[in-house]
Structure formats: structure tokens, C-alpha cells
């Protein structure tokens, strides 16, 4: 029997809350974190998309000056979320076996601000002015490495990179590390900081971003007939995963069990989702099998639902394939409607929300769903949060899909 893995600490810094209590309060209320960007570069480059969902608390407000100077913004977000999750878990650095403490911290894009700023410096001022911290700041394993240093985690620091599935894949890696006995505790998460003119231009170029420049708060509208793309977000989510025996031995507060996970690949197209949703279906079924979960156990899904015209529908097909008629009883939340798309961080933040949903037995809401696409007849939570069954074991699924055909699913069960 594989070791049971539980979630004992949560952390987040997002466009709708700089910590978990604020995030949860707003996720239940239904707010938008999107706004017009005031940065000079928006006008300087005449960007076709002029808004995004910035983190509501900027790292400079909570980190020291040397920390913000020596870490890329993506790493700064990771460290902030990880510190909150660690404090929330009640774990003590003095008492833990550091060789059994690991990190799996994902990013989709990595240190893009550092990379491009250094390129600007090189061109404008020459090689001497390119600072020596540039490489450790831009490397994609920067967030995982910084979290490992911060915690003294000597049991390995991993960086799953699978575009917008990265954060959920980190959960999968963490689960496997504990099940295999390689670790007792893993800090998992995802971080992203790509609200920079180049990625904004590049995502706009592929028509992935909403162009609702005149009304940013209404731009992210998953499942709505008028959806026209996602809204770029930034931030990080972090979760402390722990073997159940380790958590019980120290009397930890347990939010939920990370019951199952799966990662599959479409092998269909570099950016387009498989229209049959077959890769996503396999991921859902495998995660449920992994957690010994029956369709009727599932009561809530935090969907990938980015608000792109082509992305939202195949996920419905996959959910229908995996859950069958039970899907009619499942409350689906599309929380990117509120905070935009945090790319490699999104799966981690949404896993935080799933853990809280099964812990409090209530769901976050979806905003901006005025006219639901008839091709996607999901039971979507709009308006008010929906109560989940008060008794018995319940399961929430979190789906994440990434460019490259990456599908990652985790199943989070109440305890």
C-alpha cells in the first residue's frame, strides 16, 4: 500500500490576494484582478493588449531589498508563497530531517524579466554591465533552488516545466516523491512573472490573449459565448505535501489528501488542444484510478478554463468522458475568470483553492459568465459559492493543460 499524502500548508500570492486568506475570501466573493497596465512600455510598444492581472501585493512590499535585487520576480513570488505555506504547516526547520525535505517548484517561462533586462543592458551598455547574478536569476530552476535554500531542503529540488500544466505537474512530482519514500515532506508549487512586453506581444501574436482593452475586468470569461482569449496573470501558489504518518506524528492540521495525480501528453499539436480531449480524458481517468476514485466521489472541479475560444470546449468533452452522468452533479469553478491565467503558477494556485474547497466544503465562484456556450453544458458556479456535501468523503479535481499537449490532473480528497 502506497504511503498516503496529505496537504498541511497553503501559500499564495495572486492578483486577487497576496496571501491565502485574502485569496480565499475574494475567490468566494467573485472579484476581478485584471486592470489596465500603467507601465510606459504599453504605449512605447503600442501593444495590442493593454491590460493584465498583476499580483495584488508586489514582492517589494514584503521582501527585503537584497532579495528583490538578487531574485527574478518569478522566484520572488515563489519564495513569498512558499514561506506562507511553510508557516501555515507549523513545520519546524530545527526539527525536520532536511534530507527528507524536497522541493518541486514549477514555472512555465522562468526568469524572463531577468533575461530580457540583461539583453537590454548588454546592447545599451556592453558586457561589463551585465551583472554576475544574471544566470542564477534567469534559470528556470531559480524558484525551486531559492525555495530549497530558504527552507534548507536537501532532499532534491525539482522544476517541472510543462507550460500552463507546470504547477499541477509539480503536485504530481511531489506526490511521487513521498509515495516512493524519497521524501517525507515536499514543498510543491508554481510561480510565474511574465507580464513583460515581449511575452505580452508574443501571446497576443498567437491571438491567445483577450483584446477587451476597454473593459479588463470583463475580459476573462471562461465558457461565455463572447470569450476571446485569456488574461495574463502573475504570482505563485505553494502547498506543503507530507506523508500522512509524518503529519499525524506531529499533530498537524490536515486540509485534505492528495489522493491521485496523472500526467499525459496529447502528441497531437504544439499549441492546439486535441479536439477529442483524448489526452485530457486519459489524464483524468488515470488520476482517478491512481486515487481509487469513482465518478460519484467527485463533486467539484477547478477547471483549466482559460477563456480562449478553442480551449474551453475539449475540457468539457474530457470531463464528460471521465465522469459520465456524474458530471451533472459536479460544481465546476473557472477561477481564471477572477485572477487571469498565471501560466505555470495556475495549477498550484488552483490546487490551493481545491484543498480549501474540500476542507470548507464550498466552492469558489466564476465571474463574467453571462451567456454560457451551449457546447459546454457544465454546471458552473456563478454568483454565490455552492455548498458541497457536508457529510462523507468528497473529491475535487484540478485540471491543467499546457502548450505542447501537456495534461496534468490532481485529485484532492477530504479527510
Amino acid at each position, binding site marked *: 500500500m502506497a504511503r498516503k499524502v496529505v496537504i498541511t500548508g497553503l501559500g499564495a500570492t495572486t492578483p486577487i490576494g497576496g496571501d491565502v486568506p485574502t485569496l480565499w475570501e475574494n475567490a468566494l466573493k467573485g472579484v476581478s484582478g485584471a486592470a489596465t497596465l500603467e507601465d510606459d512600455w504599453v504605449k512605447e510598444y503600442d501593444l495590442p493588449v493593454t491590460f493584465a492581472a498583476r499580483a495584488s501585493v508586489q514582492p517589494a512590499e514584503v521582501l527585503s*531589498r*537584497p532579495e528583490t535585487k*538578487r531574485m527574478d520576480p518569478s522566484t520572488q513570488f515563489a519564495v513569498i508563497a512558499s514561506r506562507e505555506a511553510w508557516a501555515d504547516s507549523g513545520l519546524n526547520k530545527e526539527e525536520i530531517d532536511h534530507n527528507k525535505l524536497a522541493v518541486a517548484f514549477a514555472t512555465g517561462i522562468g526568469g524572463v524579466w531577468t533575461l530580457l533586462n540583461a539583453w537590454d543592458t548588454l546592447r545599451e551598455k556592453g558586457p*561589463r*554591465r551585465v*551583472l*554576475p*547574478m544574471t544566470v542564477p536569476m534567469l534559470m528556470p530552476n531559480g524558484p525551486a533552488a531559492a525555495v530549497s535554500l530558504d527552507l534548507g531542503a536537501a532532499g532534491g529540488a525539482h522544476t517541472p516545466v510543462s507550460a500552463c500544466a507546470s504547477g499541477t505537474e509539480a503536485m504530481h512530482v511531489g506526490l511521487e516523491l513521498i509515495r516512493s519514500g524519497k521524501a517525507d515532506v515536499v514543498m510543491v508549487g508554481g510561480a510565474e512573472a511574465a507580464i513583460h512586453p515581449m511575452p505580452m506581444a508574443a501571446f497576443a501574436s498567437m491571438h491567445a490573449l483577450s483584446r477587451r482593452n476597454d473593459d479588463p475586468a470583463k475580459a476573462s470569461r471562461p465558457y461565455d459565448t463572447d470569450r476571446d482569449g485569456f488574461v495574463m496573470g502573475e504570482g505563485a501558489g505553494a502547498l506543503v505535501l507530507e506523508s500522512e504518518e509524518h503529519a499525524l506524528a506531529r499533530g498537524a492540521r490536515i486540509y485534505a489528501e492528495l489522493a491521485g495525480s496523472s500526467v499525459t501528453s496529447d502528441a497531437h499539436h504544439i499549441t492546439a488542444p486535441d479536439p477529442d480531449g483524448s489526452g485530457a480524458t486519459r489524464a483524468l481517468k488515470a488520476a482517478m484510478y491512481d486515487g481509487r476514485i469513482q465518478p460519484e466521489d467527485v463533486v467539484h472541479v477547478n477547471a483549466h478554463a482559460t477563456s480562449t475560444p478553442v480551449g474551453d470546449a475539449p475540457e468539457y468533452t474530457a470531463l464528460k468522458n471521465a465522469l459520465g452522468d456524474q458530471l451533472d452533479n459536479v460544481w465546476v469553478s473557472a477561477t481564471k475568470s477572477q485572477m487571469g491565467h498565471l501560466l505555470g503558477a495556475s495549477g498550484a494556485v488552483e490546487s490551493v483553492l481545491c484543498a480549501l474547497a474540500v476542507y470548507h466544503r464550498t466552492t469558489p465562484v466564476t465571474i463574467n459568465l453571462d451567456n454560457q456556450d451551449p457546447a459546454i453544458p457544465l454546471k458552473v458556479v456563478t454568483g454565490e459559492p455552492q455548498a458541497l456535501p457536508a457529510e462523507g468523503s468528497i473529491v475535487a479535481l484540478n485540471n491543467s493543460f499546457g502548450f505542447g499537449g501537456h495534461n496534468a490532473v490532481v485529485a484532492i480528497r477530504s479527510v
Partner: protein
Amino acid sequence: MASNEEILAGLAEIVNSETGLDEADVQLDKSFTEDLDIDSISMMTIVVEAEEKFDVKIPDEEVKNLKTVGDAVSFIAGAQA
């Protein structure tokens, strides 16, 4: 041209932003490695930022001779001339 006092204050500001050390602790007699615990990456960052701030060149082969804050102030003062 910056005076020695201004160079010291400017270096203290750079050291503070890089390491978080109190600017008041950055004194002429302090060793960068022994007293201020500055590693080689931070030292090179401080050198590059000092070059920009004071509009001087500090050759790489000179950096190993800058053992104390006072050494750096003297070198920068001389290089400005």
C-alpha cells in the same frame, strides 16, 4: 568628482542594496570578505555598480586587491582623477 566621503557613502548604499547590511557598518577598515561576508558574486556586482555610479573602470585583476572598503574608496578616488 566625488570626495572620499561621497565614495564611501555611495559604496555603502550599493553594499546595502546587495546584501542588506546596514550602511553604517560599511566602514573604511572593514574587509569585504572577513567583516562584511561578501561572496565573489556579490563583490563583482558591487564592482560593476560602482563603476557605473562613479564612472570609473575597475579592472578584474584589480578586484583581488580591494580587500577593504578603504582600498575600494582609494582606488575609485584615484581612478576618477
